[in-house]
């Protein structure tokens, strides 16, 4: 039971949107997709959903290609939010669930339960256009979860939400995952990926540049950060072997090192300089990895 993308390539004329992308997401796992705009995330998602056919390679769910036969088990939240603006929330959710082959009775019950969970049951009879953007987003997420899918694709599920709503949606997604759903999602926010995902990939120009479990990715990145708090100037430390980057901070410095072994000599040097108040070795953030791999900031 797994989602498997094998050497998928999608070309639009001369333009290669996705280039030899391979990916495996085991059942019940959450996979995070990072990538700049135009890096091929949405095209990959569309290929997984069967909206686009890969030029080369294949995509399977449990060993079988994904077709409209698999429609009931798939949930999708598109990057561009889309709902009928003039349709009532409840009618709309029931309709979309029915299209995924859920019975009307079940759809009605699930819709009510989800609206309750997101604390918006009073919106059931309202038109979508009357709702605020954040609330529309909740409805959109419900539309992708209401029919109890086992493979869920979420394209930027948290963009444009306030922290309270992000928390609410996050916990809902985690609950769905606990119930056994496999989830692939993309996000603008590295911290969301770090917090929610087991595995992750970074896409750049249609290619996967980094992939694996978050711990693995960080370890394989090799570089680590050393944070120092001291009153004296630490510029001299940047000349030590193994130090790749030196950034002065308000109360000290942040050094990027290529190897943990260099940390020892930094500590010794720093202690010679003055009264050291703080010394720590930190894992690299996904942000740093992203910048290092893609060569530019994400958002």
């Amino acid at each position: 039971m797994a989602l498997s993308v094998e050497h998928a390539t999608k070309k639009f004329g001369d333009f290669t949107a996705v280039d030899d992308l391979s990916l495996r997401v085991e059942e019940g796992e959450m996979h995070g997709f990072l990538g700049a705009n135009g890096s091929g995330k949405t095209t990959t998602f569309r290929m997984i959903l069967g909206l686009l056919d890969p030029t080369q390679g294949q995509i399977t769910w449990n060993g079988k290609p994904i077709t409209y036969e698999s429609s009931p088990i798939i949930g999708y939240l598109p990057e561009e939010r889309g709902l009928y603006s003039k349709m009532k929330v409840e009618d709309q959710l029931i309709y979309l669930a029915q299209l995924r082959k859920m019975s009307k009775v079940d759809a009605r019950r699930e819709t009510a339960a989800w609206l309750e969970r997101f604390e918006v049951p009073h919106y059931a009879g309202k038109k979508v256009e009357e709702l605020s953007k954040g609330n529309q987003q909740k409805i959109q997420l419900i539309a992708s979860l209401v029919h109890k899918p086992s493979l869920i694709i979420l394209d930027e599920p948290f963009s444009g939400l306030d922290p309270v709503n992000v928390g609410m949606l996050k916990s809902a997604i985690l609950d769905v995952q606990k119930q056994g759903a496999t989830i692939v999602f993309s996000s603008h926010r590295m911290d969301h990926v770090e917090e929610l995902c087991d595995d992750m990939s970074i896409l750049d120009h249609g290619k996967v540049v980094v992939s694996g479990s978050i711990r693995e990715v960080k370890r394989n990145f090799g570089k680590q950060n050393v944070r120092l708090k001291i009153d004296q100037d630490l510029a001299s430390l940047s000349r030590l072997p193994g130090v790749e980057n030196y950034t002065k901070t308000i109360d000290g410095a942040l050094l990027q090192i290529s190897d943990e072994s260099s940390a020892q000599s930094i500590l010794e040097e720093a202690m010679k300089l003055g009264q050291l108040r703080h010394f720590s070795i930190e894992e690299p953030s996904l942000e740093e990895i992203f910048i290092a791999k893609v060569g530019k900031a994400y958002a």
Partner: protein
Amino acid sequence: MHSFWIIFKQAFMTKARTKSFIITTIIVAAAFFLLANLPNIIESFQGEDDGQVLHVIDESGGLTVQLQAQLEQSESDIQAMPTDLSEEELKQGITEGTIESYLVMEEGNTLSARYVSESANEIGAGAEVENAVQAIQTAMTAERLGLTDAEVGELFTPADFAREAVSESSKTEEELSQARGLVYVLILLIYVAVIYYPNMIAMEVANEKSSRVMEILISSVSPVKHMFAKIAGIGTLGIVQMMIFGIAGYFAFKTSGSDMAEGFFSVMGFSEIKVSTFLFAILFFLLGYFLYAVLAALLGSLVSRTEDVQQLMLPMMFLIIISSFIAFSGIGMPEAGYVTISSFIPFFAPLVMFLRVGMLDIPLWEPLLSIAIMLLTIGVLGWFGARVYRGGVLMYGSSQSLKDIGKAIRLGNKK
């Protein structure tokens, strides 16, 4: 099949429940009742009118009596009354509105009369008076020439004039004029229907695309199924609406009981309703609808914003308008060569072949061939449209033109 019905039902119900649909249906149905009862309504407004009084300045004195007799004979409610007032005073009266009209009559070699009313272009009363004066004049002349009543009667016997057509497919003149009204009304209905409902489809598709709900829809069900379910749903809505109009119209004229309704029925050819004409009308409506609906869905799938729909629909509208020109001009001459030819061209056939079927007795193979051509076109267009639709609904861009069809096919292409 399940999801087909879900979309079908949704397309039907959401449109049927919109205020604009309900209001349009009610207004048109009400218009039928209004039209059917128009004579009654007009009468009820003119109820208090006891007929106008015509003041007659008559030198000889005897003419007024004759005029009154003539007017009564022709069932006019104008009252001719001799007057002692001078013409000046009468004119004054008309200007002030106390008098409606007056007549100055003088008897000479021929009768001369002057009808004066507030406005010279008043048709009703003036014509009635003129006819009456004419009749008196005729009677006087007959008397002078010494003709008997029988001789006068003979003089006015109309010629026996009949039209006959040589062509076999032509109907008799009587049949034609009966068919013409019915065919005219039905062509108009088909014309409105093939513009109105396919437009609805294009708007609907463009709306789903611009609101981006399309991506969810086509990740749930195949675009082809979605497209055809939508076409079928709106098509059924069209049939229901047309049926409501038909039933409303029928009852409106049946229940009004006015003379005009009877006259209308016979003139329009409804008195002997030809079942085959109606069946053909329904058939050609359906074919025309499907043909244009597929085209409209295809075009609707190309635009990103609903505002761009009309622009892209223009070529299609031209096709419909041209076919309506052919059909309406063909009512007068259904056997013209261009009518015959265009009745086999798929985009013109729904209107034009229906016109020929309704107006002429053409052999059955002709409409059947035309229907076969249309079915084939619908099939090809459906296949082609589905391919464009598949890619078109995923396409978002600023410029929309027919050139995008190629782009859409490539995008939706398998491989």
